[in-house]
């Protein structure tokens, strides 16, 4: 299989690492070669973070180059804009449609851009939802990341059962049930 390139972008502390672990896990289950590249350290303190997941018969580099992503999963709108140029022409954006102001915007040194989604929709298919609100309804706002993964799962090649198994292996035991529900909610959204 030709290598598939997935990216997860967001704000440090949003749970991009767990999401990338689940994505990496699902690709391993399918027997592919997998590489995942993460950001730790300074950038996790509320900064812009990006994770690359690549799977296929044989994967060389661990990063996704601009213009090469099949699926861009963005946990926040501004971060979607920052990394939209990584998408292939037929690449898909899965967006948690929320706004988190970065510090330059908070202190008035910069303005949060308007019309981000409309701009990206000119060139790419966009699936969006306020996953944070959905997760809040489910009872744990932090599991919005798995809601988004549920949406992204529609654009990947694995059975729901396999996703469940990986979620069980990856998240804290106490949160398995709510994360499965979150996944279902996202999966249903992308129908």
């Amino acid at each position, binding site marked *: 299989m030709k290598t598939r390139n997935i990216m997860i972008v967001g704000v440090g502390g949003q749970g991009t690492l767990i999401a990338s672990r689940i994505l990496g896990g699902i690709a391993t289950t399918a027997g592919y070669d997998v590489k995942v590249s993460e950001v730790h350290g300074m950038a996790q303190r*509320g900064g812009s973070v990006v994770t690359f997941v690549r799977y296929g018969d044989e994967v060389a580099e661990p990063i996704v180059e601009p213009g090469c992503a099949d699926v861009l999963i963005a946990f926040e709108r501004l971060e979607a804009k920052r990394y939209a140029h990584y998408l292939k022409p037929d690449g898909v954006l899965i967006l948690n449609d929320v706004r988190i102001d970065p510090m330059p915007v908070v*202190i008035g040194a910069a303005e949060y851009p308007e019309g981000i989604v409309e701009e990206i929709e000119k060139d790419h298919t966009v699936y969006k939802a306020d996953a944070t609100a959905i997760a809040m309804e489910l009872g744990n706002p932090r599991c919005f990341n798995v809601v988004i993964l549920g949406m992204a799962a529609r654009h990947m090649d694995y059975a729901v059962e396999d996703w469940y198994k990986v979620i069980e292996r990856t998240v804290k035991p106490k949160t398995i049930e709510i994360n499965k529900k979150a996944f279902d909610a996202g999966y249903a959204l992308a129908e």
Partner: protein
Amino acid sequence: MGEKKLMLGNEAIARGLYEAGVKVSSAYPGTPSTEISEYLVQYKDDVYCEWAPNEKVAAEVAFGASVAGVRSFAAMKMVGFNVAADPMYSAAYAGVGRGMVLTVADDPGLYSSQNEQDTRAVCRAAQIPVLEPSDSQEAKDMTKLAYEISEKYDKPVVIRTTTRLAHSQGLVELLSREEVEDKPYEKNIAKNVMLPANAIRRHVIVEDMMEKLAKDACDMPELNKMEIRDTKVGFITSGIPYLYVREAMPEASTLKLGMVHPLPMDLIREFAEKVDRVIVFEELMPVIEEQVKAAGIECDGKNIFTKLGEYSANMIRTNLLGQELKADPAAGIPNRPPILCPGCPHRSTFWVLKKLKLHVAGDIGCYTLGAVAPLSTIETCLCMGSSISSLHGMGKAKGADYLKNWVCVIGDSTFMHTGVNSLMNMVYNQSTGTVIILDNRITGMTGHQDNPATGKTLMGDTVSAIDFEKFCHGIGIENVFTVNAYDQAAMTETIKREVKEEHLSVIVAKAPCALIPEARTKKKCVALPDKCIHCGACTKPGCPALSRKADGSIAIDPTQCNGCGLCRQLCKFGAIEEVE
């Protein structure tokens, strides 16, 4: 075939250490090396693991364990290797008992560091062999090979990683642990005591051994792989950059170096003869390129590719193949720099310093973010421990009056690391000045590791914690005050009073990091819109939990707020209250 598992580069190194039969490991946390120890401690029944107060200590612990006859290990980031350089330059002369290996993690692209130094250059100066893996499987395999090389050539060996390798996951085949017998200790003063008379003889051996290793490395196909494909272009490369070559030009020939010091120059010469054009593709300094050129082999390298930052496959496509890539980032996007977390106790201390208009000498940790807007208080920061010594230097340059406008800040772990030396210097050389220890009860930036002041060890033992007040009293400082970092009034009063005094004082600004269990409360701050006059005073310190609504009133995100109470203290109108 063993079981295959997706592992971070750092996790794979930890697994390699376990499989290699390592028995002692010491490290100081530093991104991107930290997780090695955190993964290694899962094998604590077989491997003793510790956090040392600094990298010099860690390297010396590893040396001692090696002399005593077991395989030993130390991990650090590249700037930490400078701290460990003193023992390591001499350990290169003394050699090892059982194998001794260090992982040193470089950070091209500066994801979490204060410079972009290249460990290969340091190891070249210190005559220490360096291995460089390209992925997680190699990280594990080379860790094991490093011990064989260490023992065969009587040398400590460095495994150089980069952020991209350390924090990338790849599939790794798990094997079982090799039980390595302890080597009986032999008294050997001529080898293990670096007196000049001994060192002068050891230096001869060092040079001979490195020459022998360089020759032998030409026939180590498990490390140095010549892959001849199309012969128009041949890349000499190593580590992660090898993968970029494979991605961008899979048809090109490669000489993939697993050993980057000493270089297998005869093999390099053989490769150069087989291809029409040689290109050295290495991140950061032209360490390989300069040596290849010095050996009389024509090659390209830094004339095409930069000395700055991380490489990529696209860099080959653009700089070498002249392809135009149609993937430009959107213009005018506001940056999202890292910031102090919601409820961070450092924010509270910095707010006092800002209000008092004091100059601040800073140090390495989360709190270096005190240099970033809107706090913008830290004015100097070099390296671990430098805040205290810099403040002392300022005082000696300009006198005690000058220091009334300055303080320095240093974290608890950084103080333990090297700050203690600088503080002893202030005592000894009769400095005045105010030293603030930002005591958040943990090593924060690297992801919450214990240190000598937390009372817990990496192995999970509860031990006596070093008490900063007692420590400072013990070295002769009389004026030591512990203040709750969140208490604006008490902190303001204490700092204001102490900076005016012409004596040395230490203020311990104490409150646990907002992210650790110790800090968890059920408290939240809530805004009362009826009382809010929309002045925005509470938002000025830049807590990410606070935002302004369209009408100018304040919203506090309950999922982010930890009820630290800083905003409540800043509101003069009682428009913020704490609730349980």
